[in-house]
Structures are given as structure tokens and as C-alpha cells.
């Protein structure tokens, strides 16, 4: 196959169009960044305080009107609806306390031969991948509170489940008319000035609600504490007058969620390495930012696609004559 000069330019321009699209893929500087809004709300979960009572799980179901979950064994033996015993997040469970244990599990907040709890729920990302991925705005982020919630426009494609770095959304696989569930920070309560069920019900101050910048400050104060230092822990909200004075555990000097995947509004503190508690190690940029940067570079003002199309129409027009049979070059060169 020999390329003549005209062909060569065509190949070149096609290649150039593709290349402009991919050109900026590596320049991380171009990748956009999003920030927590001024009035964004959040939850601070301090695993060192959590006693694993699951009052938060019960309250969550009550506030959101969700039924209890059962293991397959219980369902099979007719034990449904006696108690709630799901072991993970589900379409009925938006908030789940998980147990970490090691060795003889004798001491709380210790990795070796110790135990701890972890509260799993939607992180309410600052730059949520689920919102960016959803083709039909089924997930949206409230411009004021920053709460990420689902709505009826969802088409059930489950791209949000692919996108969420924490594997949070839950889809009703066994329903003809399915919906998607995840923690929505009790937005219907927060709207009216209330606080989420989990924070309201938590007896130990492990889950507190508040303005995201204030809980961030609170988190910073806590990780600065020396082990054993006395500290006044608020119980339900960051400014709660109800407090509990106790000595601080040996915090890991890190706020999980401050930077993870572009940051979150649900922040976590712990004395045990976060990976051991099932929290993924994530880069500081949201994958949504990377994707959108690539996509919007290629499709910027539709200039590249339109330019490509113009070139193609022109080329196709010139070659269109070949369509008529008597012009076909049947013979080999």
C-alpha cells in the first residue's frame, strides 16, 4: 500500500485531531479542583470513641423509614423481622458499624491484639464521582449543604456504583422498579434545622454533626491531643453543650476525608491505621476531576468534533463518486 501526498495529509489531520484530544491528558495542572462550600454540613466520626452500640443504625432506619435486614440463614428459617442483622450496607441499611479485631482483641483502639469499630456510610464527597458519572442527574450535590442525594430521574445504569471510590451506593437488584440507596445525611431533617439520626442518637459523641469547616477544626484539635490528655468531647453536634470529658486516645495524626479523592464532608478519626478499618487509600484528586478534564478537553466547545466532521464531510464528498458502480476500480494496481 503506497500513500500518496493527499492521503498522507488526511492521515496526518485525522491523527492530529485525535492527538489534540489526548495531548493534555497528562498535564495534571489543568485538572480542576472543587472546594467545600461555606455552609456545607458534615459528620465527624471518631472511631476512638465509638462503643459499637449501633444506636446510630437503629436511628438511621427509623428516621429514613427503612426495614430491617436479615442474613440468608435467618430468612430461610423464618426469623425475618425479629431483629436487624445485616452485615453490610444495603438498600435497607445506609449506615453500618463494622468491627475490626485482631488476636485476642483485648484492648480497644489497638491494632495488635485489639479491636475497634468503623462506621461505614456515604462520605458526601466534595467532588463526588457518583454525581459526575450519573448520566441523568440521578445523584445531585446540594449547592448549599453539599449533601449528595438520589432522585427519581435515575435510569438505573449503576455507573454511580462503578464510580464511587468507597463502594457506597446500593441498587435494588431484585425489584422490577428499582431505586438506588445511600446515606443522604438525613437531608429531610437537616433542611428543617435538625441533625442526622446517627448523630442525634449516638451516646458517646463518636458521631457529631456540624458545619464542615467547624468539624474539620474539631478534628484538627483532636489529632493534636497527646494520648491521655483530658478533652471535652461534644456529644451530638460540634457545638453541643452536652459534653463528656475523657482522656484522649493515641490518635493517628491524620484526618481521613480531608483530602481523599478531592475531600469529603464525612471525616474520620482513628487510633488504628485507616486501611485496617477498610478505608481505601485514595489519591488527592477525584477521579471525576480527571475524567471531566479529559472529556471537556476533547469536547471543548465541540470545536474538535466539528473540525473533524468538516474534514470528514469534505473527504467523503470527494470520494463519494466511487459509489457509482462504473467508477469502481476493480483491478489491482
Amino acid at each position, binding site marked *: *500500500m503506497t500513500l500518496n501526498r493527499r492521503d498522507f495529509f*488526511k*492521515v496526518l489531520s485525522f491523527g492530529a485531531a*485525535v492527538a489534540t*484530544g*489526548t495531548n493534555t491528558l*497528562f498535564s495534571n495542572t489543568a485538572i480542576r479542583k472543587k472546594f467545600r462550600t461555606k455552609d456545607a454540613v458534615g459528620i465527624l466520626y471518631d472511631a476512638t470513641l465509638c462503643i459499637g452500640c449501633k444506636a446510630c443504625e437503629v436511628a438511621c432506619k427509623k428516621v429514613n423509614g427503612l426495614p430491617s435486614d436479615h442474613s440468608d440463614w435467618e430468612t430461610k428459617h423464618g426469623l425475618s423481622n425479629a431483629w436487624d442483622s445485616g452485615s*453490610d450496607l444495603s438498600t435497607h441499611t445506609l449506615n453500618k458499624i463494622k468491627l475490626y479485631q485482631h488476636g485476642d482483641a483485648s484492648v480497644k483502639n489497638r491494632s495488635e491484639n485489639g479491636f475497634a469499630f468503623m462506621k461505614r456510610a456515604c462520605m458526601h464527597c466534595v467532588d463526588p*464521582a457518583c454525581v*459526575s*458519572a*450519573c*448520566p*441523568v*442527574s440521578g445523584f445531585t450535590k446540594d449547592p448549599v449543604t453539599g449533601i449528595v442525594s438520589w432522585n*427519581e*430521574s*435515575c*435510569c*438505573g*445504569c*449503576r*455507573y454511580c*456504583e*462503578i*464510580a464511587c*471510590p468507597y463502594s457506597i451506593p*446500593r*441498587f*435494588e*437488584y*431484585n*425489584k*422490577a422498579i*428499582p431505586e438506588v440507596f445511600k446515606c443522604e445525611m438525613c437531608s429531610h431533617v437537616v433542611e428543617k434545622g435538625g441533625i442526622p439520626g446517627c448523630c442525634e442518637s449516638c451516646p458517646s459523641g463518636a458521631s457529631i454533626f456540624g458545619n464542615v469547616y467547624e468539624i474539620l477544626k474539631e478534628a484538627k484539635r483532636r489529632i493534636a491531643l497527646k494520648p491521655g490528655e483530658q478533652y471535652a468531647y461534644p456529644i451530638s453536634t460540634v457545638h453541643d453543650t452536652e459534653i463528656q470529658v475523657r482522656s484522649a486516645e493515641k490518635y493517628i495524626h491524620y484526618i481521613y476525608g480531608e483530602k481523599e*479523592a478531592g475531600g469529603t464532608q464525612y471525616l474520620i478519626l482513628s487510633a488504628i491505621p485507616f486501611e485496617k478499618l*477498610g478505608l*481505601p*487509600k*485514595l489519591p488527592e484528586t477525584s*477521579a471525576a476531576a*480527571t*475524567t471531566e478534564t479529559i*472529556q471537556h478537553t476533547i469536547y471543548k466547545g465541540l470545536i474538535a*468534533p466539528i473540525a*473533524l*466532521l468538516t474534514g*470528514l*464531510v469534505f*473527504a*467523503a*464528498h470527494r*470520494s*463519494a463518486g*466511487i459509489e457509482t*458502480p462504473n467508477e*469502481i*476500480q*476493480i483491478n*489491482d494496481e
Partner: protein
Amino acid sequence: MMSEHRPIGGKILTKPFLVLALIAFIAFILVVKRFLLGIGSVTNLNDGYPWGLWIVYDVLVGTAFGCGGYAMALLVYIFNKGKYHPLIRPAIMTSVFGYTLAGASIILDVGRYWNLYNMFWPKYANINSVMVEVAICVASYVMILWIEFSPSFFENWRKGGTPKYINKFMFVFIAIGVLLPTLHQSSLGTLMIIAGNRLFPLWQTNWLPLLFLISALTMGFGMIIFESLFSSVILNRPLEMSMLKKLSAIVSKLLLIFLIFRFGDLIWRNEISTIFNPGFKQFMFFLENALIILPMIVLFIRKQSENPRSLFLTAASILIAGTLYRFNTYLVGFDPGYGWQYFPSIPEIVVTLGIISVELMAYLVFVKKLPVLPTVRQIENN
């Protein structure tokens, strides 16, 4: 005016056709079940692996197999390679089926299908979502393909053949028909970038769009070669060797370009050493790339590329490699953590087989009843 394409005639209700019809019927019953009882009643999909066989095979691989029309249109019309013309109609036909069924099968996989139109509704369409781009481009491309294929119908059923106005503007449709697959086949790669580090580093890269685009082109050409050789044998027609030889020369170069980007990217990202750790993912990576490297070498050997048998095997290898690349990027390399697992259920597999059966049945009906395949005279002249 003598047309250069002819229906090949023959009986429709042959034995293989009836077997295919039976599979399609069983699949249909399962599809009914899925609509009544939910996706989980038929598939093994779960919250960790929300996309499985249906999305990866029916949509991703299905449309990539359907890239024959794209690849040929690119060559014939854009690069003025008129001599490939006799092959373009069968190529477009395979694309018509591949894309139409891929589009239709999305309805099975999407949980709230009645809301699909929201993707095209400005109020809801989220322009930040790669999926919106894919949806718009695939939907419009299906329409374009039917227009490109329409002359086969007109020549058969309309006195005077294809209406003048369609022929007159065909070049516009062809141009759009090249633009759209370029956009959405690359976007099908971009889709997975948002999975971040849940996709294994051997597959996760910002170059996914380019890799998916090149891979789709190799599969498009691979499909034309495969299908042309296959139909020669099955339908007892002479080989179209001289054209296939040239196509294979193009494919071999595309494969090389793909490998340069694939491995160049791994080296650039410092992930190349990952391939030497033992593991299932690494094994799949080797398999995927061996099936690209082997045909490339075979095609670079002149004597081999002129042998129909090796040509057939290389084409098959390219198609399998592209299939694996898609399965690896979407399933094997994807790990949502928390102990999630996925392997397709039997009913899930049967539904996919049903879709393939419908495609094959349509192929048989179309080549027998419509002027799709080039006439024997035309092949022998070559």
C-alpha cells in the same frame, strides 16, 4: 444497471437457523423474567460488580465487533481506497446488527429503562458524564448505519433503486458515520477512568480513550477479514483474498501502534514491573497481549499473510484479544474491594447467547434475501 451486490438466495429455515431460534426463544423467556422480577433474578450482578457480561459483551464487545462499517468507511471514503468497495456492504450490515442489538440490550441492563430518555433531555442530561456522550453518539450512529445500509433495501424492493436524495447526501451520512464511532469508541474507554484505583494499574490509564479507539479499529478490520473468510467457507463462495491481504497489512500496523501506546504508557507510568508479579490479573494481561503480538508477527511475515488459513486465525486472534481487553478493563481488572465477587450466571449467559443468535439469524436472512454480498464476478475479477 447491474448491481455489484446480489442476494445469494436459498432456504431460510435451515437446521442451524432453527437451533438459533430455540436459543433466542429461551433467552426471551429469561428477559421476561428480568423485567418482572428485577435484574438480580437473572444475573449475578451485585453492588460491587454492577456491570457484568451484558454490558461488557453485549454493549462493549458488540459495538467493537460492529466497527467493521466504521473501519471500512474510514478507508474507502475518507482515504479514497475505492478498491475495497465490494466489502463495505457486508461490513456495514454486521455493524447494523452489532450496534442495533447493543443499543437494544442496554434496555435489559438498565434498571429504570423508562428514564433512559433523560440522557437526551437537557433538564437531566449531565454533560459531565461520559455516558451521556456515549449514549448520544451510539443512538445517532445506529440511525446513521441504517441509512447507510438502506440501499440494500431499496435495490431489492423499490423500483429505480435507492432514491436520488439519499444517494446525493450519502457522503454526509458517511462522514457522520466516521465521526460518531471515533467519539464513542474512545469514550467507552474514558468511562472507566472514573473507577480510579479500583481498576488495576495495568488497565487504568488516562490513555484509555485512545487505546479503546485503536483497539476498536483493529477489531473492525479483524471482523471484516473474519467474516469474509467465514462466509466464503460457510456459504461456499470464492475467497476475496487480494483485498483481505491489503486489509491485513493495515491491521498489522494498527496492532503495532496499539502495542506502542499500551506498553509505552505502562513504562511511562512506571507500572511495567507490575506485569511480572504472579497473579490472575497478570495472566490475563499476558493472554490479552499475546493474542495481539502473535497475529501482528504473523501478518508481518509476507508468506503467512497470504495464506487464508493463517489470515483466518489472525483475525480470530485479534477479535479475541479485543474482547479480552474489554473484559479485563471492565471486569477482571476491576476490584471494588470488600470481598465482592462476580461470575455470570447461566441464565445471564443464555441471554447473551440469545442476542448472538438473533444477530446470526438476521445475518443469514439478510444475505439470502438482500443484495449484500458482492457478486462472484466481482470477486473473481480481483
